[in-house]
Structures are given as C-alpha cells and as structure tokens.
C-alpha cells in the first residue's frame, strides 16, 4: 500500500520532509528513505544552537549496513532535537513522518520552504525513480 505523504509537508529529493509553523520548521526523513535504509540502529543529529544550511548535511541515519547523510532542507538555527530517537531509533521505521521528527529549526528565511517539493511532486519523483 502506498504511504501517505502529508499534504501540508514539503519534501526534498534527498528524502527529507519539513513542516512549518510560524518561523519554526520541523524536519525528518520520509517513509521512502526509511524503507531504503532498513532497520535503523542509530540517528546522529546536531545539537541545539547549531546552525544548519539548506542543502548541507546536518546529521546521518544508520542501519546495520549503511549510513545515509541527512541534509537540511532549510537554513537556520537548531532549537530542539528529538531525544526519543537516541533510545528508540526504530521509531524512524515505525513513524517517520510523526513521532520520528528529528530537529526543529528556527528559520532564517521562511520563504525558502516554498521552493521545496509538494507531496504530489515528491510522490511522482519517487515513483519515477522506482520504475
């Protein structure tokens, strides 16, 4: 069954999602990404106070056999990091769009989210790469 990609989220070609409230962006990786990775064993995230830059790596997600860089979709300052993932990295597999959010960022340029992919665009992107 195809996964639901929330309509109000935005997506990147590197398989991150972002949802914005005011000037705060919440970021995670998509269902497609967690499927590709397999069982997640560890998530390496930045710390509150760190800066992130759109398109640059901000952390990584590890499975037993692979590591995948996580790229920040936005530019800003990390204000909160999801501590649950340290003890329960499997949440990334179980609920990648919800409980397994990774960081919250205060946006320095809220407008840049507009240039990211919509749910429909992301879905056709991944379907394209699967064929």
């Amino acid at each position, binding site marked *: 069954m195809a996964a639901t990609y929330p309509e109000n989220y935005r997506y990147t070609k590197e398989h991150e999602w972002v949802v914005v409230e005011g000037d705060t962006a919440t970021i995670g990786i998509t269902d497609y990404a967690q499927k590709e990775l397999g*069982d997640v*064993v560890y998530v390496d995230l930045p710390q509150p106070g760190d800066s992130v830059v759109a398109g640059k790596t901000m952390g990584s997600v590890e*499975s*037993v056999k692979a590591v995948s860089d996580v790229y920040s979709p936005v530019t800003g300052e990390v204000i909160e990091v999801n501590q649950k993932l340290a003890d329960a*990295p*499997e949440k990334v597999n179980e609920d990648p769009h919800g409980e397994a959010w990774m960081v919250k960022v205060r946006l320095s340029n809220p407008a840049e989210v507009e240039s990211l992919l919509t749910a429909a665009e992301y879905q056709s992107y991944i379907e394209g790469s699967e064929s």
Partner: protein
Amino acid sequence: MIKKARQHVSQNESLIFERSSPGKRAYQLPPLDVPAVDPKDALGAGNVREEIGGFPEVSEVEVVRHFTRLSTYNYAIDHGMYPLGSCTMKYNPRVNEAVAALEGLRWIHPYQPDESVQGALEVIAALENALCEITGMDAVTLQPAAGAHGELTGMLLVRAALEAEGRPRRVVLVPDSAHGTNPASVAMAGYQVRNIASNEKGMVDLAALEAAVDEDTAALMVTNPNTLGVFEENIVAVARILHAKGALLYMDGANMNALAGISRPGEFGVDVMHLNLHKTFSTPHGGGGPGSGPVAVKKRLEPFLPLPRLVNEEAGWRWDYGRPQSIGRVRAFYGNFGVLVRALAYILAHGGEGLRRATLDAILNAVYVRKKLEPYYELPHKAPTMHECVFSDARQAGRGVRTMDIAKRLIDYGFHPYTVSFPLIVKGAIMIEPTETESKQELDLFIDAMISIAREAEENPELVKGAPHMTRIRRVDEVTAARKPVVRWTREEEK
C-alpha cells in the same frame, strides 16, 4: 546433495568468566631471588589498585579446553576453501610458522644495537629486494602494519613528493569500484576524494579520467586487476594521462595474486603501491590480523620514505635516521617483523618461476569456476577474468533470494561464503577468488554446491533464505547488536 559437510556433536562453551572460580590458577611463578617490595611503599598508597575485578581464575586444563572448544566453532583455511574475492585466502605454509618461531628471530628486542641483530636486518633487506623485483619498483618500506596503513603511507608519500615540487594539490581520484579503505585513507592524508565512474566494461573510463584530471589532481588510486578481477587494459594510457598533468598513479596491490611473475606494476606506470603480505604472500589471517602492508615506490619518491632506512656499510647493516625529506614514522620500530619473516619464507619457497606458476594457477582456477557457473549465475561484466570473478544475484533475485542468502546456504555445504555485495558497482555481487591453493576436486565440490543452491533458489527459495540450517547458531540479529551494543561481559554485581 551436500557432500563436504555433516553435522556433528560439538562442545558447548560459555565465556571464560563464567567458568571462573576464586582460587583456581593456571600459572606458577618462581620464588623471588630479591627482596619483595610493598607496592604501597614503592608506588604510593593511592596508586595501588584493588584486585582486578572479574578477571578469570581458572586451571590450566580449563584454559586448554576453553580455547580448544571455541576454536572448533570456527571455519578456517585448514578446513577448506574460502572463495572470498579480494582476500586471497591461500594456504598458510607451516614452514613459515616454524621459522618465525626461531629464538633468534623471535626473542630480539627492537632497540638492540644494530650489530647484535645483523641476521634480522638481513631478513628485512632480503624481503625489500625481493618485493622490488616482484613489483618492478625501486624501493620498498616494510613499516606499515596492514594494507590500509600502507595506503595511508602511500598517500602521505604522494603528498610529500608533490609538496617538494611546489604544491601538494587537493584531490585524489578513486574509482567507484574501489575497496572502502581507499577513500578513507585518502581523507586521512588530507586530500579530497573525487569518485570516478567505471565504463561499461567495469574499467576506468579513459574519457572520464581525461576530463577529471587537472592541475589540482594529486593522484588516481587504482586497483589492478580491478575489483571485478579484470585487468585494466588501458593502464598504460591511464598512467600517461596522469603523468602529463603531473599527477601520480597509486596502485592498490591487493590483487597482486594475479600479477606476480607475469607483469610488474613498475613497468606499466605505477609510481607508488602497497602490497598485502597476508594476501598474496601467504601470511596467516589469524582471525583478522596481523597483516603487513609494505609500500613500494619509484626512485622519485624514495627520499620521502618513512625512517629509518636500512643501509649496508662495511661494518654491516645499519638503520639510517639521517633522512631529512622523510615523511617521518608511520609506527614505532620497523614493521611487523614476524610477518615479514613468513612472507620471505614464502617467496624463497617459490622462487621466480614458482611465483609465476602460482599466479597462473590462481587465474586458471578463477577462469574455471567462472566457466562452470556462468550458466547458473548472472555475469555482469564479460571481460576476461583473472584471479577472481564477480557474478550477481540477478537471476535468483526474482525468487526473493539475494546474494547474502546464497552465501549463507553455502555454509551448509561446508564452505565459507564468497565476498558478498562488493564491489559496489555490481548490485547483489557474488565475488569469488579461489586462489592457487585449491585443487580441481575442491573447486568441483564448490561448483556443485553453487549449482545446487541455484537450483534450490528456483525450487525451494525458503530453504536458501533461511540458511544456514546446520550451524551451531543461525543468522544473528545484527540490528539489536547495533541498537543496543553490549561489547563486554559484566559481573552480576556491576549490572
């Protein structure tokens, strides 16, 4: 039908700590011939430890039984073939062990004066010469402790040579088919890695190389034959392209087992390379080390070699520390001397013609295996095979059977798996290197096993996917091991 293996009763053994009990002992020291000293007086009360909590206390027979039982849980070359691509798991000659154990080679301290270890220095000189002869290079350092260590050393040599000419440059090109240590070593030497794609034959793409090499390229790191077991037919042109722009050619010598005695890297344009004594030169893998990774260079790089260097003077061999351009040391002392002794013994046993013959046998075996398995497994690259061949699981994947499953089922047939999922440029890779050690009988057993598994993948895929079935333990949960790593035993009281 499984011919090479049967189940049999083997002892159950837990960790040594669980066998321990206060008061048991396996040692006896002679009485002191000098007065005893109170540790508190000598070291200061605050510096004296309590007992080493949890350390074992067992009797001698328990030591013997414990490790003997554990050893029976291992597969080893002494049991049978390891078709591991890129590892060159050949027979470990026991004469090597015997000579390495000679008192005069084993019980010498690295800081003994040069005149008291002339025999050891002679061993080092003899091996340096032999490796130069085999590789066609001008000088060799035996300091690096392993292949990866040799790669790092080689990269540092490249940097030193380019720096001496004005600037070190910034980028090293690495093929996407390369072994993981290659880019890691490049990064450790302070260079940026740039990947270079292979062409449809799985070799370095000349056009891509030409486009990629510029004044900022320090070197290309190539493996030849490459990780598909295929000789880089354009290697001379590759060297020319690099040299024209002042860049160097580094060769990862992991696949020397395909070249020794028939081709010399120094003659096809290589400037610097490393060797793996624990691969081509038969020193034992020992469950994961020790190895040795000598680095061979052309004259141009000789001044930068790690110090000290051996020189021959009237009084005999001597270590020379007067090397102002040297990159320095890459480890303390001189190298894995015990491993060097074994490699030299191997070379002496073969001689020039013997090495050539071993190489030809290694290639013959790989070509034979490839021919016999081609009807059953997908062969993505059709170029002539040298000492190893690479299939993929494409034909079996349709039934949900992947390379890892086939590898695990091979265990039930009495073999160690081949190299799984490497090189990365082949999806579902099955990489096989028989080495010259294997007779036709052993190869035929292996081939029969692989053919049988291909059939099982068709007719009974679940059997393959659930393999191995006949081992002491079956597939392990690597996910939990990585999520919640437990890397030591702990006493109840400490938990």
